């Protein structure tokens, strides 16, 4: 069962620019048996659905064809998700109910406003937790999209996992440069490759120079960098939230992503934010054998400050001495 411990449905957002291979990737994942108990929601910016015909392996498929879910189709998305949650709530937790929703966004969608729509909805916030943002990048057109389109860049910036598709097509010599460029735009996400949905190896790009790309329209142009922030025992959850809420209020345009696990009286909370939006924290099982998850450490990806500033500011808020 994919649902979280507190019974909420996990939502996986699958994004990526137009023609980046979202449906192809998803179709292959379904073929391989991933997302077995998921409802697949496909959003098409154009009024005519096409992709649904390709996703016949889905346990259940819903098409949202009244506009892009991050802007004009937002109300439609909220209504659809509410309907799904409502239906799920009528089945008791031991019954056969879906534990995950996979939302394939339109190529024109920015994942940020979608998460904000869910977080600000009084019903959905209690039913849905965004578990992962997967963004697909097409190796052939990616540099053009990153350089020329602020939306393409915003999609890459907000991802947890980046999948570079069509790695067998296009300029093979340029691929390491592309990967290095993607790493600069989003220093925190895992990057993997895919060919028609199957995993494909990527060349090593350590030390390769990135191609300079212009900053997205809402950014100051400074490079993004990740900061690992250890929350020592003197910093309690309340002090931490006062600090983080102030940071996101003041620097929300520069702090693109915050992610980590924090121990609290209520258990281990998985905290994540996309720009100014923090989603309702998910309570994780007490002992999860996941070595990649380190408790009481959060990763902040942003620009326009020094890593040390974050540590000192947090220590000041918590009243602990930073030395």
């Amino acid at each position, binding site marked *: 069962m994919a649902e979280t411990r507190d019974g909420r449905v996990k939502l996986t957002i699958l994004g990526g620019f137009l023609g980046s291979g979202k449906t192809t990737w998803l179709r292959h994942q379904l073929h391989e048996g991933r997302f077995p108990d998921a409802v697949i929601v496909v959003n098409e910016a154009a009024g005519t659905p096409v992709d649904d015909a390709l996703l016949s392996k889905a346990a259940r498929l819903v098409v949202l064809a009244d506009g892009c879910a991050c802007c004009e189709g937002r109300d439609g998305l909220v209504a659809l998700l509410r309907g799904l949650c409502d239906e799920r709530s009528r089945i008791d937790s031991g019954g056969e109910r879906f534990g995950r929703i996979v939302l394939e966004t339109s190529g024109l969608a920015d994942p940020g406003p979608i998460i904000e729509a869910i977080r*600000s*909805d*009084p019903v959905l*916030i*209690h039913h849905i937790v965004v578990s992962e943002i997967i963004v697909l990048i097409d190796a052939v057109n990616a540099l053009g999209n990153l350089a020329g389109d602020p939306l393409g860049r915003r999609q890459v910036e907000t991802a947890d996992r980046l999948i570079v598709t069509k790695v067998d097509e296009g300029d093979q010599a340029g691929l390491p440069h592309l990967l290095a460029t993607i790493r600069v735009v989003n220093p925190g996400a895992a990057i993997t490759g895919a060919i028609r949905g199957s995993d494909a190896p990527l060349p090593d790009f350590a030390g390769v120079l990135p191609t300079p790309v212009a900053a997205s329209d809402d950014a100051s142009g400074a490079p993004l960098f990740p900061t690992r922030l250890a929350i020592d025992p003197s910093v*309690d*959850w*309340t*002090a931490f*939230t*006062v*600090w*983080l*809420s*102030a*940071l996101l*209020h*003041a*620097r929300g345009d520069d702090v693109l992503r915050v992610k980590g696990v*924090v121990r*609290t*009286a*209520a258990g281990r*909370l998985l*905290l994540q934010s996309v720009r100014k939006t*923090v*989603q*309702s*924290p998910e309570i994780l099982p007490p002992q999860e054998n996941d070595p990649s998850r380190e408790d009481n450490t959060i990763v902040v990806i942003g620009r326009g*400050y020094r890593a*040390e*500033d*974050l540590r*000192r*500011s947090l*220590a*000041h*808020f*918590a*009243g602990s*001495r*930073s*030395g």
Partner: protein
Amino acid sequence: MCASCGYPARPGHWTEAGAVDSHDRIRARFRRVEVLGRVLPAYGLTAHDGAQVPGIQVGTLSGNQTIALDLAELWVVAEKLAGRPVDPLDPCFIGGETD
């Protein structure tokens, strides 16, 4: 809906997720104003929460007061009352701590 003040119930704010029971929630509210007390005076503001009514009372030294329902709203209210942006990375928060 809160029976004593009529505030409609809101979706839980993410900052309130760390509490298990009502005792934790009350403790967290007191701790919250304690933390705010280290920050808001730099902007000439005070924070008070008696845990009697929902929200945090934010005031200026001249007596102007507003209630913020959660921390997201608090920073908006604080900026309005202070008349300038509130920034946790302000030099007065990151340069201090020498005593």
